[in-house]
C-alpha cells in the first residue's frame, strides 16, 4: 500500500499543476493585500496585520482548495482512464481497491500540503505587507497570538472533512463518467449551486457546497456544538455514500481505453 501511495504522490508532485496552483494562491494573497480594506469589512476593526491575514485569506477563499481537490480527483481517475495510464497500473499485481485507497490518501496529503502552504504563505505575505502586529483581530474580538494560531488551526482542521467529502464525490463522478470535463463540471456545479440555495435555510446545510463554505468557520461564527455535529453528519454522509459508490464502481468497471 505504501508503494502505491508513493506511486500516486510522485505523479502529483512531479506535475507543474500543483506548483502553478501555489503560485496562484500567492497571487490571490497579494491581490487581497491591495483589496484589504474592502475584504476586511466587518472582519477586523483594528486594521490589518500579518497575524490576522491567514484567517482573512482562509475566510474569503474557502473554495480555493476545493477547486484544486476537484481537479486532482478528476485527473487521478478520469484523465488517467482517458490517457490509458490507469490501465497501466491495473496491469500490475495490485488490487483495484488498494489503488483507489492510494488515490484517496494522495488527495488527502496534497490537500494538507496546500492548506499548510496557504497558512505559511499568507503569514509571510501579510507580514511583509502590514507588519506582524501585536494581536490577532477578528471582527471586534481581539486574540493573543497563541489564541489566534489556535483558531487558525481549528479552521484548517475543519476545512479537511468537507474538502475530503467533496473530493470523494468528484472521484465517484470520475469513476462513473470516465470524463475529466464532466467530473470537474459537476464539482463546479456543486460549488455554484450552493449560494443559490442560501435563501432556503432549512435545506442549505444539506448541500456540500454550503458545508465547504460554512463548516470550517463554525468556531468563528457559531460555536454551538449541535451545528458542528449537524454539519459533520452531513459531510460524513456524503463521504460514506460517495466512497461506497466508488468502491463498487472501481471493482466492476471495465477498462475500455
Amino acid at each position, binding site marked *: 500500500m505504501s*508503494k*502505491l501511495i*508513493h*506511486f500516486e504522490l*510522485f*505523479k502529483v508532485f*512531479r*506535475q*507543474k499543476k500543483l506548483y502553478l496552483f501555489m503560485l496562484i494562491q500567492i497571487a490571490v494573497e497579494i491581490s487581497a493585500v491591495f483589496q484589504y480594506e474592502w475584504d476586511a469589512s466587518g472582519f477586523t476593526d483594528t486594521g490589518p496585520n500579518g497575524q490576522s491575514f491567514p484567517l482573512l485569506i482562509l475566510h474569503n477563499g474557502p473554495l480555493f482548495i476545493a477547486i484544486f481537490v476537484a481537479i486532482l480527483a478528476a485527473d487521478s481517475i478520469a484523465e488517467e482512464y482517458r*490517457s*490509458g*495510464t490507469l*490501465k*497501466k*497500473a*491495473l*496491469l*500490475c*499485481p*495490485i*488490487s483495484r481497491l488498494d489503488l483507489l485507497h492510494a488515490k484517496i490518501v494522495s488527495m488527502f496529503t496534497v490537500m494538507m500540503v496546500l492548506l499548510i502552504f496557504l497558512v505559511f504563505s499568507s503569514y509571510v505575505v501579510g507580514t511583509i505587507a502590514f507588519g506582524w502586529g501585536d494581536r490577532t483581530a477578528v471582527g471586534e474580538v481581539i486574540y493573543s497570538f497563541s489564541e489566534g494560531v489556535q483558531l487558525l488551526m481549528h479552521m484548517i482542521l475543519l476545512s479537511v472533512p468537507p474538502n475530503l467529502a467533496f473530493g470523494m464525490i468528484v472521484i465517484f463522478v470520475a469513476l462513473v463518467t470516465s470524463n475529466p470535463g464532466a467530473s470537474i463540471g459537476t464539482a463546479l456545479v456543486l460549488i455554484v449551486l450552493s449560494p443559490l440555495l442560501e435563501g432556503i435555510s432549512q435545506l442549505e446545510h444539506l448541500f456540500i457546497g454550503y458545508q465547504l463554505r460554512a463548516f470550517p468557520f463554525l468556531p468563528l461564527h457559531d460555536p454551538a456544538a449541535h451545528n458542528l455535529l449537524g454539519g459533520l453528519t452531513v459531510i460524513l454522509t456524503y463521504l460514506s455514500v460517495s466512497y461506497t459508490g466508488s468502491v463498487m464502481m472501481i471493482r*466492476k468497471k*471495465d*477498462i*475500455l*481505453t
Partner: protein
Amino acid sequence: MGNQVLLEVQGLTKTFGSRVAVDRLNIRIAEGDIYGFLGTNGSGKTTTIRMITGLIHPDAGEVRIGGFHLKSQFKSAISLVGAIVENPAFYGYLSAYDNLKLMANLYPSVTRKRVDEVLEIAGLSERAKDKVASFSLGMKQRLGIAGALLNQPKLIILDEPTNGLDPQGMKEIKELIVQLAAEQGISFLISSHLLHDVEQICNKAAVIRKGKLIAEGEVKQLLASGKETRTLEQFFFDITEGDGRL
C-alpha cells in the same frame, strides 16, 4: 516448444448490450510459444486481451495464467505477465527512466538495476532521461516493451505492437520479440492484423472472427492444411470467406 501450458482461456464470453464481442473463446499457449492472434478490426481481439489481463470482466468463462486463476488469484496470475494493451501509455511529463521506475514500484521485487537492464534491452538507454512526450511512436512502443519486461514475465501480451510504426520500427519490434523469445524463453501472445508479420515470427496462430475462434494451430500446419501450401494471407482470406479486411 515447451509442453507446460502457460495461458489457458476457456469459454471466455463478453457481450456489450446486445452485441456479442467474444463468444465462448478457448485458447492455450504453451511455454516458448509465439502465438499470433489474428482477426479483422472489431473481431474481438482487444476485448479478449483485456479479459486475459483483467481489465474487462468476462460475462462467462475463465482465464488461468501459469495455473493461477485470474479472478481469484489475480496478483499471482498477473505477476507472470507483461502487457501492452492497445497503445503504450506513459506519463508524458516524466522521463523514460522515471516512468519505468514508477511502474517498478508497483512490483514487489523489481530493482532499479532492472530498470536500467530493460532500457538497454529496448535500446533506449541513451534516451532514458528524456521526457516521454518527446518520443516517437516507435520509441514509445519500445519503451512499452521495456515496461512489459520489468517484472521478468513468462508471458508478454502485445496488442497490435506494430500499429502506426514505419517499416524500420516494425522491423525493430519484430527482431526484439524474436530475440526475447530465443534468449529469455519468454512466450508471446501477439494480436495483429498484419498477416505477414505473424507468419514471419509466430509458431502458432489463431483466427478470431465476430468473437468466435475459427482456426487455431501451428502456423506451418495451418498453411499446409489446404490442397497446396498457402501463405498466411491466403489462408486468412479462405477461412474468413473473403471478409478479411486488411
